[in-house]
């Protein structure tokens, strides 16, 4: 995998995600569609976390809170009769605002303290969703989400069938990948990585570290919110237990396993961790899958010690070195 060019890898990936579900469906394996959709939603989450953890190097142990925020907001708005075209931007804006509210004070803290504050925030979010019966119906989850959600309409496009909605998810994933890549290879992305490598040196290079960090922190919430909206529309039921601390940990681990800041790496990790066990569950039964987390924990320790750069280490872009005359 490591030897395949990045672009070819991404191309192959998109090819598979495009054609696997319809193929599976025609063979009567309906779960391929479901698993592919889940992979897509997780890909968005992971790409978002990769921005903040992989590029800027900030350990966020509460990322799932913003996914939850996106999922619940979109459900609540949909129940009140809002159209998908309004639900998506409204959810994104509100989630980013919440993220800003956390980021403003929390980003002043040093690495591991930031991790703990985000962890605490994530738990508060889950507990609030769990305890605020009046709004969220508590641990039983929001009822009637399914009925409230109508087929998303974009101007003349209507996403009626599951397969077509799946392609909508895929569209956002591809968009997410393009956005990540373009930011990576720009002045902003370079500033992010510089901050990850050495905050003080970045500041003395003229980077407004606080501002750039806050921006990345908020920007990553767009991914989380979008993933949340799509999740609600896909699953059509949400409850607080989908958004535990261990989900956040799973996301962080996938970024570390894949290679911090490596877009193909984190994508591959998502497929390995989310997709493969689900397919195996279908083929081999649940017994083997239960051991997944055990190996996962072990793998994480081994990875940090022996291969901290991840399965597909992020590779810096090489440039022509002839002095240009422009």
């Amino acid at each position, binding site marked *: 995998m490591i030897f395949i060019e990045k672009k070819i890898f991404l191309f192959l990936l998109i090819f598979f995600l495009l054609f696997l579900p319809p193929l599976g469906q025609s063979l009567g394996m309906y779960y391929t569609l479901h698993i592919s959709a889940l992979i897509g939603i997780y890909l968005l989450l992971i790409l978002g976390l990769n921005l903040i953890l992989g590029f800027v190097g900030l350990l966020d142990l509460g990322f799932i809170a913003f996914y939850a925020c996106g999922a619940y907001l979109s459900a609540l708005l949909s129940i009140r009769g809002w159209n998908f075209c309004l639900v998506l931007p409204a959810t994104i804006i509100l989630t980013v605002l919440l993220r800003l509210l956390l980021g403003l004070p929390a980003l*002043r803290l040093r690495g*591991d303290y930031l991790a703990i504050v985000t962890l605490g925030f994530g738990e508060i979010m889950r507990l609030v969703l769990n305890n605020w019966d009046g709004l969220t119906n508590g641990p039983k989850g929001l009822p009637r989400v399914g009925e409230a959600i109508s087929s998303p309409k974009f101007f003349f496009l209507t996403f009626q069938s599951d397969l077509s909605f799946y392609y909508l998810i895929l569209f956002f994933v591809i968009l997410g990948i393009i956005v990540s890549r373009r930011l990576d290879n720009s002045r902003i992305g370079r500033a992010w990585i510089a901050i990850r490598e050495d905050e003080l040196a970045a500041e003395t290079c003229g980077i407004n570290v606080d501002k750039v960090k806050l921006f990345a922190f908020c920007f990553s919430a767009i991914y989380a919110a979008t993933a949340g909206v799509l999740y609600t529309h896909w699953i059509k039921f949400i409850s607080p237990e989908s958004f535990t601390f*261990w989900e956040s940990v799973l996301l962080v681990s996938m970024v570390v396993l894949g290679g911090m800041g490596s877009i193909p790496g984190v994508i591959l990790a998502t497929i390995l961790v989310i997709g493969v066990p689900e397919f195996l569950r279908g083929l081999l039964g649940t017994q083997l899958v239960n051991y997944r987390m055990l190996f996962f*924990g072990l793998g994480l320790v081994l990875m*940090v010690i022996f291969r901290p750069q991840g399965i597909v280490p992020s590779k810096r872009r090489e440039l022509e070195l002839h002095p240009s005359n422009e």
Partner: protein
Amino acid sequence: MFFQQLLNGVTLGSIYALIALGYTMVYGILLMINFAHSEIFMSGAFFGYFFYQLFSRISFFQEKIFFFIFFLFLCSMFSTALLGIFIEQVAYKPLRRAPRLAPLISAIGVSIFIQNFFMLFVSNQSVAYPQIFPLKKYNFSLLEINSLQIFIIFLSISLMLVLRFFIQYTKLGKATRAVSQDRETASLMGINVNRIISLTFFIGAGLGGAAGILNGMYYGSIKYNMGFLPGIKAFTAAVLGGIGNISGAMFGGYILGICEAFTAGFIPGGAEWKDVFAFAILILVLLLKPSGLLGTQLKKV
């Protein structure tokens, strides 16, 4: 009612304080959050359970309840302490020179592993915790106290006093303090820093193990995922008292325990929201006064 809740708070606080010591000691020396400490605490509860099963088959212990309890705690704490050292050697030691986040991520890996290990190979359900000694209730005019609460408070305070004595007066204890002040200078003075680090994990994990058993006795059941919440609360306690500060951790533990008991007891709906309250304290202290209430200056990067 007030004194009853105060008593509940002190009991809970004793357990938090014992766990918090493990966080604070490791942080004091390695400047690292030992995220796996909550699983060490959970393991301690299970070790206690295993040793109970083992010892209750030995006839000698059946008459002598004192020895039964003594050896139960000794063996469980020792096993937990060994687990602590093992984790340090395997998952943290190779990362001493790695970036700061590396050991934290490694610790998360250890947490996942231990939790799933107990879930897969011991039980994925709650396990009823044995009642080690008969529960007696004592009624005073203001409050009712039972023998278990007395035992928890007594044992915790004794352990903390032993720790204080050890740190303050023994040669190894002084070496520990020296290492936490300045690792390099201490090693130049001939202190074996690696041994002190292992010792710190040994003590921290041992105390965490004791807390695990006490927690199991207090609530009457244990489960593979029981570590997370008390773990994070104990960490809050350590931060509250000023992380790295041993007296601070004890103080923070009791403060948090009492606050929690009062929230649950006196605020309507407080029982549901008491965890939110604990997390809110954690965030507010980190944001507003990260050096903690007792104010140890944090080392900057």
